[in-house]
């Protein structure tokens, strides 16, 4: 028998409270204003979200219009599957097909938009030092992980992106039918002329980043799991750092807003939505 101080509620309370202040590599910084790795030029009081997501982990947050969201691939092997919803009316969400079709581009890069199924700009991709992302292959699922790793369950150590996103969605009252086609950040998929998907899984340098701007009030769900096409036998994934901070709502003279006629009309639709 172990030496236990938890035989009664008083001992259990003291035991629980003694854990306060414990630090682990993957955890949220609460409040976010306590973060010490502030993005350049961002004051602590502007911080909205600071969290390190573990390999296989997930995270979610509501962000207001104008907020900036930065994802940093700390060790060069992250793969962040992302879903985006209009927080006010979550039946409006990221539409991957419209995002690539309307912008005439299969590959995401700086200056491009994430479009909703209502013809609106959800987010702008302001900065991208990775240049390798995926709009085609989507989230891993329990079956695909089980085939590769022998297990893909949420309660195991090799969870799959879809089931992580289902948990994240559930915490906002959403469910299986809301886990829609996603973006995968930091792992690249290009399309060959014959349609073949070509995965670029690195190795990549640590510290690659994407910085996005919320163009609507959003619910953002993130899962950090190995890419579904990653052929390595080991469950290979490294942590991602999230930073979000308050920012100015996009103005009429914004370069991303005005970059293309299709994108400008997406902004006009977003601005019209907020005209109330």
């Amino acid at each position, binding site marked *: 028998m172990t030496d236990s101080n938890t035989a009664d509620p008083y001992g259990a309370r003291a035991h629980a409270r003694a854990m306060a202040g414990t630090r682990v590599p993957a955890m949220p910084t609460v409040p976010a204003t306590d973060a010490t790795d502030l993005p350049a030029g961002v004051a602590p009081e502007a911080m909205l979200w600071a969290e390190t997501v573990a390999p296989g982990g997930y995270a979610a947050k509501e962000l207001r219009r104008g907020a900036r969201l930065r994802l940093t691939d700390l060790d060069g092997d992250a793969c962040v599957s992302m879903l985006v919803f209009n927080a006010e009316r*979550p*039946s*409006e969400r990221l*539409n*991957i*097909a*419209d995002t*690539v*079709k*309307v912008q*005439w*581009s*299969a*590959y995401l890069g700086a200056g491009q938009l994430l*479009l909703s*199924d*209502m*013809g*609106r700009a959800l987010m702008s991709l302001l900065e991208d030092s990775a240049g390798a992302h995926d709009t*085609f*292959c*989507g*989230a891993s*699922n*329990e*079956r*695909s992980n089980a085939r590769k790793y022998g297990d893909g369950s949420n309660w195991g150590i090799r969870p799959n992106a*879809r089931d992580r996103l289902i948990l994240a969605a559930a915490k906002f009252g959403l*469910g*299986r*039918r*809301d*886990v*829609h*086609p*996603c973006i995968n950040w930091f792992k690249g998929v*290009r*399309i060959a*002329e*014959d*349609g*073949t*998907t070509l995965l670029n899984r690195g190795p990549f340098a640590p510290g690659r980043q994407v910085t996005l701007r919320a163009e609507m009030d959003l619910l953002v769900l993130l899962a950090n799991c190995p890419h*579904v*096409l990653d052929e390595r036998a080991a469950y290979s994934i490294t942590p991602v750092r999230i930073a979000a901070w308050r920012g100015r709502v996009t103005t009429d003279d914004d370069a991303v807003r005005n970059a293309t006629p*299709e*994108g400008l*009309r*997406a902004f006009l*639709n977003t601005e019209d939505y907020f005209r109330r």
Partner: protein
Amino acid sequence: MSDPAIDGLPGRIVLDEIVAARAPWDHALRTGQVLRIIDLEGNQAVDFLMYGLTDDAERYSAQDTIAAQRNVFLKAGTVLLSNEGRAMATIVSTTVARHDTIGGACSCESNTLRYGHHTKAQHACVENFLQSNARHGRGKRDMVSNINWFMNVPVEADGALGIVDGISAPGLWVDLRADMDLTAVISNCPQINNPCNGFNPTPVRVVIAG
């Protein structure tokens, strides 16, 4: 009299209908049944979704299908997967070289981005999908990336992607075998602003056999 449009289908014909130009259509398919869709007049995009008959939160997933076959084009032999990685249906045969699943469905809203706000009132595939799905208790949350039979969406080396002139022709078809009990939902695409229908929406024929 022999009808080349239904030759080679297994078992008995249980349904043989024309889907009017611009119209929605949906029907249950039982495991093993084959749905043939015939492009009667050529280059008519047929937007297509599938939902599990008993659990419709399981539905067609373009991304799972692409990842599993490591190719964005749908061809004879392609297994169409659900969002949970299960086989929903298989393209057992088709007389068109390839079909699309990255171009999505046209909507009134996306038309405003693609062509201008003057197209807002035009009928669109999402309107058809919403109408069919609403009859089964599904809504906008149930819209996902779809299949576009007979539609041509190449991806160029620099990533340029778009709907271009079709590679189908009058009388070409696709045969889809259900690998689970499912509901098939069609929007016979009403788009008139791009070449997906040759700028002229036309009827298609649907046959269920087996």
